[in-house]
């Protein structure tokens, strides 16, 4: 029994870290511009397919394909921002529908280019076994993905809090006036955060390709997972994204181990709703909306209005 739980928690933590990697880009963009990019999952998938193409055509290992994927996905991410920046009114909702449309386009584009077949890396190392004290098991790729995720979370956190650009981005997220005072052009910063989101998506995509199998319709699930975790973390708070991801991962693994594998998704959604309703500002809310956690958490109760007026929304 104990061994069972131990392994469940272990693989839960691993997939959780990977979930965090999936969510990171979405969280960043939301923190900066209050825009939820519903095409985020599709960008991740795109990176995965780039890796697949390079492997099947040129025989490159997934890691080697990173630079190419970075360029492709980076450009796409910039494109997404370009379109969003063209929205005339009510950006918060219209961007939702816009990126929704983009998601449909990318999914079907992938379907047309790469067909519906299931793809996966042929690299032996990726699926090799990593055994810890002959009681904990994992795929090398899983470990690598988790490691990369943690590193990227830390880097992003440091960047947001200690680099000039990072602080500028946080300024934009609180108010674009503040940014203007800092003498930075908010549009530039929004573009920057979108490109960084693209970079994060690329890492997630390559990790996905080397650890699991990919198929065109996968993007939707990725986006949902990313959004769930972003909400769990408390919109826009970076360090909590990791915590949120791990939480989901472990809960899912335990659900599979002690209840049924087909209730795995359910546990995620229920947790998601519970947090939205009970803890509107996510995990960061537990720490009284601490501001040092990257861009200020925007609570779902009210998107524009200051926290104080939030109570007005429910009567």
């Amino acid at each position, binding site marked *: 029994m104990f061994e069972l739980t131990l392994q469940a928690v272990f693989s839960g933590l691993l997939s959780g870290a990977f979930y965090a990697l999936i969510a990171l880009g979405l969280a960043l963009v939301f923190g900066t511009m209050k825009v*939820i990019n519903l095409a985020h999952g599709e960008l991740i998938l795109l990176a995965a397919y780039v890796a697949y193409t390079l492997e099947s055509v040129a025989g490159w290992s997934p890691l080697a394909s990173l630079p190419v994927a970075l360029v492709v996905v980076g450009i796409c991410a910039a494109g997404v921002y370009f*379109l969003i920046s*063209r*929205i*005339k*009114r*009510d950006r*918060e*909702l*219209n961007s*939702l*529908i*816009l990126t*929704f*449309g*983009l*998601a*449909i*386009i990318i*999914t*079907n*584009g992938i*379907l*047309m280019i790469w*067909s519906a077949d299931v793809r996966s890396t042929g690299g032996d190392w990726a699926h090799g076994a990593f055994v810890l004290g002959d009681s904990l098991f994992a795929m090398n790729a899983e470990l690598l993905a988790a490691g990369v995720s943690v590193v990227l979370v830390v880097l992003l956190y440091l960047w947001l809090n200690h680099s000039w650009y990072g602080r500028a981005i946080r300024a934009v997220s609180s108010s674009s006036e503040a940014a203007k005072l800092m003498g930075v052009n908010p549009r530039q910063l929004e573009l920057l955060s979108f490109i960084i989101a693209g970079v994060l998506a690329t890492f997630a995509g390559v990790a996905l390709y080397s650890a699991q199998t990919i198929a065109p319709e996968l993007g*939707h699930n990725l986006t*949902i997972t990313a*959004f*769930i975790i972003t*909400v769990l973390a408390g919109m826009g708070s970076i360090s909590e994204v990791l915590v949120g991801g791990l939480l989901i991962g472990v809960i899912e693994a335990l659900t599979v181990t002690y209840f049924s594998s*087909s*209730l795995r*998704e*359910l546990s995620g*959604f*229920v947790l*998601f*709703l519970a947090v*939205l*309703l009970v803890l509107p500002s996510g995990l960061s809310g537990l720490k009284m909306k601490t501001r040092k956690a990257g861009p200020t958490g925007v609570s*779902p*109760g*009210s*998107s524009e209005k200051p926290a104080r*007026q939030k109570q*007005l*929304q*429910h*009567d």
Partner: protein
Amino acid sequence: MTNSKMNNRILVAAVLITTYVLVPLLFGGNSYLLGVVVSAFTIAGIAVAWALLGNLGGMISFGHAAFFGIGAYTSSLLAMRFGVSPLLGLLLGGLGAVVASLAMLPVLRLRGPYFALAILAYAEIFRILAVELKSITGGAGGLLSIPGLPTVAGFDLNTKLGGYFTIVTIVAVSVLVYYLIRRSTYGLALRAMHDSENATRVLGVPATRLKALMLIVSAFITGVVGAFNAHFINFLEPNYAFAGTWTILPIVAAIFGGYRTLTGPVAGALVIYLMDQLLFKSLIPQGHQLILGGLLVAMILFAPDGLVGVLLRKVKGGGDHATT
């Protein structure tokens, strides 16, 4: 003013005659084409419900599949287990969806994207439950040979043509309800709430209660449409009943037609679905939804008011959402 009212009357009459007389006369014989038209109107029904919630309630939903599926299952199970007449089942299906929407009331206080995706979560949860609660729903196996619509006054509704008249009527009534709500004082208050929610509250408008009302109405319409579809296709299965298509297509349709207008969603649904089935499908056999995505993006960027919105502004400078 009265003149334009007159014109509107003529327009409405023309539309009704076309749908109830011309279309059946022209395509009545071609059960394939009629089938496609029925599917188009099914989407139109959901699109109207979705737009009602979006326009009056100011809430974008990504989970109308939930109401569609619940409506479908409620009516089908009542018909198969307890022999309830499918015609009555349509309304009960609507009620089922309303009950489901009551479970969603807590998320009403969420705004914008949060609400949209919270509703999506509900849809997913209902889907999973439909799979897991085997004893009630028949599980993943779904329900085969669901009874069709009955014969009313000597006219057999359990035919392509009967189905056509049923769904057209459902859609027409839904649009009427939408129209009546919008021109009532409730409609005024709801429209005002978009940009000045606080100001309306101070004037005594129970904002959240009105939103809840809109959610319930929207759920009811969608549930009825779902129930109709189940009795029309005579088949149900969780992944079909709660499929994302029941959310995606109506959104595309409503946005394309103009979700702030009354007739936009219906027009959008007909144009989009018929084009998709009769044109795009032959152009791109695999992945023709790509064009739909493209249309959605283009509309948001270049014509947020949608097709009807644009036409309106062409007709009478300054598209006011109040009429048509």
